[in-house]
């Protein structure tokens, strides 16, 4: 199966490891992975801030980048969620609407792709530890991916998954929200950090780098010892 | 004129919707899903009574079940439990049928005040209801799911009876029990379609009045009755 990696700009610049893990996981389960270099950012930072015109420039670039891909898979519920919104954004656009639909239909978040498309819940990870999982809002509510990440985690023998209290609550990231309404965002992330602490987990796992930067950044600031990791890092653990 | 400013108002709405005024010919579509009809669809009437009884615990309502022969006795006990010295009741034809009339005469003989709603007495009815200990009415339609009695208030069954006294007793003939509000609403809708005017006040009453306005703490009994009993009669 041919899969084009959608790295997401955050992982491209800030989290090379997540990209590496994603490639290795996909290859391990038998996919032929390529990385279309023309890809940039999904457009969400501008789109969600109301700069729709500007965001469309980014989106068009993404449609060009993945035009010939069979599947597009990325390590982010939020960014893939944005790709899925393209048909709505380009509705009525004679040039781009069909392209938008084509991209939306072949795009998947990594865990969603593994579980729902490939039917795989065991990726051979040997990770050990007490983890709690934060289901990011866009992963669950925009993309509708609720069970796949947990299914994968639960299938790792050494993983003890502890339920995060009020897990469905937003961590306060919200893209530009974290900067524009920093005071509110701070309250939200402090509460999330508190909930993570309550679990006693050693690792906080999530599927969206933005949220993990937010929660991890707050917990580091508070001097907490919990390690914040992207789910790919757990799934690709091979020691 | 009893309807003012309608034309400009509604024309403006149609304009904003980008089409001509719709005055006739609008039909409700058949909704794609109708889950309201599935609720308790296959339950027997006895099973519905069980549901009602369980729901009464949720709504802080005492539940009794009896037959016509014992109703007088059960009702008397509930009134005594409420320390009911004065009682206001609807002037319902079922009072006679279910033996309430007999009970009322006996209670009066025993020195209790019993006032049966009498529209000729006008506002005096309300004055009495306001100081009555107990209000009694029959339920016209009873909703098992929510534990609700439905009253079609009219000249015989004033709104105040189930509202002003501190306690309220609803007599529920078994045959008035339906699954949920769906069946009651359909009944009203159908009657309306057939040209029968709906009552000036339809009261759906579910237990005693309550409020959670102070720190989300439930207070049972705010403006309406503080205690409520339902008596289901087989």
């Amino acid at each position, binding site marked *: 199966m041919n899969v084009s990696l959608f790295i997401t700009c955050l992982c491209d610049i800030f989290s090379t490891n997540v990209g590496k893990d994603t490639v290795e996981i996909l290859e391990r389960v038998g996919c032929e992975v390529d990385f279309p270099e023309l890809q940039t950012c999904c*457009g969400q930072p*501008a789109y969600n801030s109301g700069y729709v015109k500007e965001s469309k420039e*980014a989106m068009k670039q993404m449609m060009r980048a993945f035009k010939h891909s069979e599947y597009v898979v990325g390590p982010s519920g939020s960014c893939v969620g944005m790709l899925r919104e393209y048909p709505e954004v380009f509705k009525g656009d004679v040039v781009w609407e069909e392209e938008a639909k084509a991209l939306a239909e072949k795009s998947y978040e990594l865990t969603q792709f593994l579980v729902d498309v490939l039917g795989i819940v065991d990726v051979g990870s040997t990770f050990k530890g007490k983890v709690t999982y934060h289901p990011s809002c866009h992963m669950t509510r925009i993309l509708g991916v609720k069970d796949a990440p947990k299914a994968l985690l639960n299938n790792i023998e050494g993983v003890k998954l502890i339920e995060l209290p009020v897990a469905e609550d937003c961590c306060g990231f919200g893209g530009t929200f974290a900067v524009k309404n920093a005071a509110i965002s701070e309250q939200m992330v402090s509460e999330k950090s508190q909930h993570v602490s309550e679990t006693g987990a050693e690792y906080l796992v999530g599927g969206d780098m933005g949220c993990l930067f937010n929660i991890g950044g*707050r917990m580091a600031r508070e001097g907490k010892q919990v390690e914040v990791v992207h789910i790919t890092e757990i799934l690709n653990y091979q020691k | 004129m009893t309807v003012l400013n309608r034309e400009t108002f509604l024309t403006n709405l149609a304009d904003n919707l980008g089409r001509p005024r719709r005055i006739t010919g*609008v039909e409700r579509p058949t909704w794609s899903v109708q889950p309201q009809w599935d609720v308790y669809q296959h339950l027997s009437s006895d099973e519905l009574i069980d549901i009602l009884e369980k729901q009464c615990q949720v709504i802080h309502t005492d539940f009794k079940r009896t037959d016509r022969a014992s109703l007088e006795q059960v009702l008397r006990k509930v009134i005594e439990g409420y320390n009911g010295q004065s009682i206001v009741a609807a002037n319902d034809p079922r009072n006679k049928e279910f033996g309430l009339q007999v009970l009322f005469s006996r209670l009066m003989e025993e020195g209790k005040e019993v006032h049966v709603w009498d529209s000729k007495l006008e506002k005096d*009815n309300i004055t009495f209801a306001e100081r009555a200990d107990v209000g009694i009415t029959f339920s016209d339609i009873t909703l098992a799911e929510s534990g609700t009695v439905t009253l079609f208030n009219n000249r015989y069954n004033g709104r105040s009876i189930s509202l002003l006294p501190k306690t309220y007793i609803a007599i529920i003939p078994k045959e008035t029990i339906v699954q949920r509000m769906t069946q009651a609403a359909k009944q009203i809708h159908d009657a*309306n379609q057939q040209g029968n005017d709906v009552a000036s006040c339809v009261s*759906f009453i579910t237990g005693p009045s309550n409020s959670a306005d102070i720190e989300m703490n439930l*207070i049972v009994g705010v403006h309406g009755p503080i205690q409520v009993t339902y008596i289901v009669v087989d």
Partner: protein
Amino acid sequence: MSVRIGNAPFDERVQHGIENDFMRKAVSSAQGRFRSQKQAAATELGNWEDWRTLGEEIRSHTLENIDYYLQQLSDEVSKRGGKVFFAQTAEEANTYIQHVIQEKDAKKIVKSKSMVTEEIGLNHALEEVGAEVVETDLGEWILQLDEDPPSHIVTPALHKDRGQIRKTFAEKKGYDKSDTPEELGLFAREQLRKDFLRADIGITGCNFAVAESGAVTLVTNEGNARLVTALPDTQITVMGMERLVPTWEDLEVMVSLLTRSAVGQKLTSYVTSITGTRLEDEVDGPEEFHLVILDNGRSKILGTEFQAALHCIRCASCINACPVYRHIGGHAYGSIYPGPIGAVLTPLLDGYDEHKELPYASSLCGACTEACPVKIPLHEMLIRHRQIIVEKEKKYPVAEKAMMKGYAKWASSPAAYKLSTKVARPSLKLWTKDETITNGPGPLKGWTNSRHFPAPSKKSFRAWYKEREKGAKSE
């Protein structure tokens, strides 16, 4: 008058909310309860999504044909002896009601809880013509005595604790008992009962009007709406024009959705449907009935991409689900309609000028959309608002606009983008220590004030991938 409350700027209101510890604890625990109760009520039905679909279909059909159904409603009310007044504006509604007050020479008015009368500032208008107005919903009464606006559309005094309430009762009404909710509630019952019995006019809002028969339906737990409609000889009901359903069958569905979503109850204690005046020989109920149907900016929403916002049934489940509301409270929104629906509706009803911050007071987490029993796409509407603020109203910060223009260039040019993946790390080097930025420049500052930010990786992913490919080829 408008939906606006308070004059403080948005940031100040937010800060005020964040610093109000009691309010935040109260809101947080209330949200917890509301959510679990609603969850239980929805789960119990087993097919909640079908119910939501049905709710959406009914609301959508009604709004698409609102002129038809309002005509039918007003005809039916009129047939049943009621007078109907269509008011384009808050002023028209208030003036009409003032006339009724004066005509009846009414001294005392009892009101049941109604958001729409808050919206038009009716109490103020009533006092202008010398009438005494008493709010009879317990929460509203507390707020009225304390001259404080509501902070939640279902439990308006959520931000107050029992100690504050006791103090208010003591100062304003001579209360001298404990601060237990039961005693406070009983006191309110005794005090307000006198008002009910003496009132000349009762004023209510309207949860749903039924077009087919002219019935106005009120959904309460306390029973105050029943007293307001049973005892005074004149009743005035004010309804937002969208608060209607075609038939009783639709009413039933909407009420089921409302009570479950609002408070997790199968039905509230009282669902009361009043049709016109009392009939001949009836003793209680109004002999004169006025229905005021209000536009006040709603018609502007019809036919726009925001039309579904008019589907709102005021259950507050979006408010109860919203993490932003939890931390800042209702007053921070500066509108009588707070939370996500408030952030959507307020700019539509009252313009962007005073409310341009509201659409941004959301992390777009979508909890509101998920909670809405009639499927209003609330968070998507917030994005639409942002788009209008940027593209039409042009109310953006200059620096932000410049940044977004730069973004568009960056994200549409693979070369520029690739360059940035190389220079990101060196350009942040000045602020980086131990792979972490703790005091970032420019827009990053808002972030790093309370959180660390990671430094860019030593090597970008694409650089790593390129090397890996080369390695593979040379092997």
